[in-house]
């Protein structure tokens, strides 16, 4: 016996709580990855990140309606198509926004913050006017519902596993793009020394635009995946914004590995504390700890050595 619980119960809970921590971790990674790319690459603070996510969620919603209506036989796989569409729709909007707005502001990072905040207001109202003020419910295919029962107590949620799988795929995909592809090399070259990168013939403007699009596209996929576990409504994007920024900043802005490490640390801390105390207290303590650590180590967990 440990406390009021039997040994079996306790170890099951440990396992379940570990799993809860892991799903929170994958949610954080998914949220933060797009932002980390944009912030790390261009120093742009995208306050509209949440709204790009919700765009992906709405795409998923309309996909589910479309498949229910016209292709009910393929409903089981619509989610994959929805995610791909979400990537391209959010990504395309990202490219347009970069072209119209962001590219004029690269020299003023703090101003991108304000401009993208304005953008987020416009997008929110756009969603509200076009899709309605109410939240919409996204119907999931049956195989994504329910859980796998391992023991009496341990149930592993299938959608949790699915989010983890998506996170893993996208992280690997991003890692591949950043470290193996030509484009990724160009991106990293531009981050490290924009002038030199331009001098050796890299089209830095195009790299910027595509990177911004990539970041927004990943936000779209994240939003699509979150329809499984969260709400879809005009202002739902706002729920994620503080957590997302903290994860990115805590990780050290320019480092993808840092983002992942920080997502891991924050999610584990939060889910462990949530188990021992009330959710509100746990949240405050987590945020306080992160802010406290950032005050001591402002550069975040990991930093790239770059010439400024």
């Amino acid at each position, binding site marked *: 016996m440990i406390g009021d619980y039997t040994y079996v119960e306790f170890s099951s809970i440990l396992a379940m709580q570990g799993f809860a921590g892991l799903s929170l971790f994958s949610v954080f990674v998914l949220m933060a990855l797009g932002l980390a790319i944009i912030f790390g690459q261009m120093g742009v603070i995208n306050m509209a990140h949440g709204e790009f996510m919700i765009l992906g969620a709405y795409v998923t919603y309309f996909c589910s309606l479309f498949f229910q209506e016209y292709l009910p036989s393929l409903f089981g796989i619509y989610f994959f198509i929805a995610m791909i569409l979400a990537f391209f729709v959010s990504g395309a909007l990202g490219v347009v926004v970069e072209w119209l707005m962001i590219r004029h502001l690269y020299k003023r990072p703090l101003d991108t913050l304000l401009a993208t905040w*304005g953008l987020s*207001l*416009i997008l929110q109202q756009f969603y509200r006017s076009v899709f309605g003020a109410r939240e919409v419910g996204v119907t999931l295919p049956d195989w994504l519902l329910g859980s796998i029962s391992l023991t009496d107590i341990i149930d592993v949620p299938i959608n949790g596993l699915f989010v983890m799988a998506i996170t893993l795929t996208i992280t690997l995909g991003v890692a591949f793009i950043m470290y193996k592809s030509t484009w990724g090399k160009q991106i990293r070259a531009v981050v490290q020394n924009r002038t030199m990168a331009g001098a050796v013939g890299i089209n830095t403007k195009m790299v910027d635009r595509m990177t911004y699009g990539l970041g927004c596209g990943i936000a779209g996929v994240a939003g699509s995946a979150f329809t499984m576990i969260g709400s879809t409504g005009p202002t739902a994007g706002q729920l994620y914004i503080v957590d997302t920024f903290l994860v990115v900043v805590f990780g050290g802005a320019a480092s993808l590995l840092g983002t992942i490490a920080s997502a891991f640390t924050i999610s584990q801390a939060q889910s462990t504390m949530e188990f021992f105390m009330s959710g509100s207290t746990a949240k405050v303590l987590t945020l306080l700890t*992160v802010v406290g650590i950032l005050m001591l180590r402002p550069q975040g967990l990991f930093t790239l050595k770059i010439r400024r």
Partner: protein
Amino acid sequence: MNITRLFDRSEWLGFAAIAAILLILFPSVIDIFRLNLVGKYLTYAFVAVGLVLCWGHGGILSLGQGIFFGLGGYCMAMFLKLEASTPENTSIQSTPGIPDFMDWNQLTELPWWWEPFNSLAFTIVAIIVVPSILAFIIGQAMFQRRVGGVYFAIITQAIAAILTILIVGQQGYTGGINGITDLRTLLGWDIRTDSAKYILYFVNVILLLGVVMIAQFVKVSKFGRLLVAMRDKEDRVRFSGYNVSDFKVFIFCLAAAFSAIGGAMFTLQVGFMSPSFVGIVPSIEMVIFAAVGGRLSLFGAVIGALLVNFAKTTFSETFPELWLFAMGGLFIAVVMAFPNGLAGIYSTYVKPLIARILPNEQKAANAAQATKVPTKALAE
């Protein structure tokens, strides 16, 4: 420094114009209902003036000014609430004499840290000191380690989020999400009457003009020039032997104190305080007021706060479903097309015109042109 040298001649004109508009024009043409609204908008101008100093001149963007605005407002609200919660007024409660929300949350006595707020003198000191101390702690921790720019913005934002969750969660001590409401009198003087609102409006304007003067004093002093130097080339200032972080902490605390005064005046004029003025959204909106007015201009900040809020009220009355579009568009337009805000438009287009009409203004205009920070310098 001689007070007449605080402003140059055209600035004196501007200051006089603003004072005349706020003290004479508005009260004589606007009814008390709208005037009270103007008063409310002007409380945000306190924050915007602080932001002009710390963001426009010092390059420190805080997305957490709502923290200080809220703390100032809560200090004031605590005093007023205690005054409203006399044992006679609260005789239906199980513990008369404590604020109603405490009674609902089974508190049977006033928490110790509420006690001092029975005194108006203590409250007035606390309004300035409490936010300044918090600003000092945050600033000291971050500027010592040379955290700046975007990092500082995001961390202050997180602190605003934390404070909101705390206030909402500790409802027995803070009134929770409803805030501290139903405030009636200040030392027996009913603040809800029309005459009280007139008086509070004038107090507010005079305090604001005072704050603008203090800010102007800081701006034109040697310290103000160092601030700009720090913003543009921090390292050079440091290598010249100045302790950069101390300056930054000071200016951040000053901005926090300004915000807190605004918050206290807000509570007095609106009659309640709630966590919705502490969080991220109001904090960012306050930055926008400063941006629209012109991040380098103190008068611009005042005008920006007035105009944006006026637009917000008008839009939401006339086209309620479209006002977010308009607000969002305004943000983007100001940032992209007019980084110096309305004040920038004024000094680029209007001022030369005035200078041409009034030749002896020419020198002042030239001088202003010379000290104007080029857009490039806004880059970090």
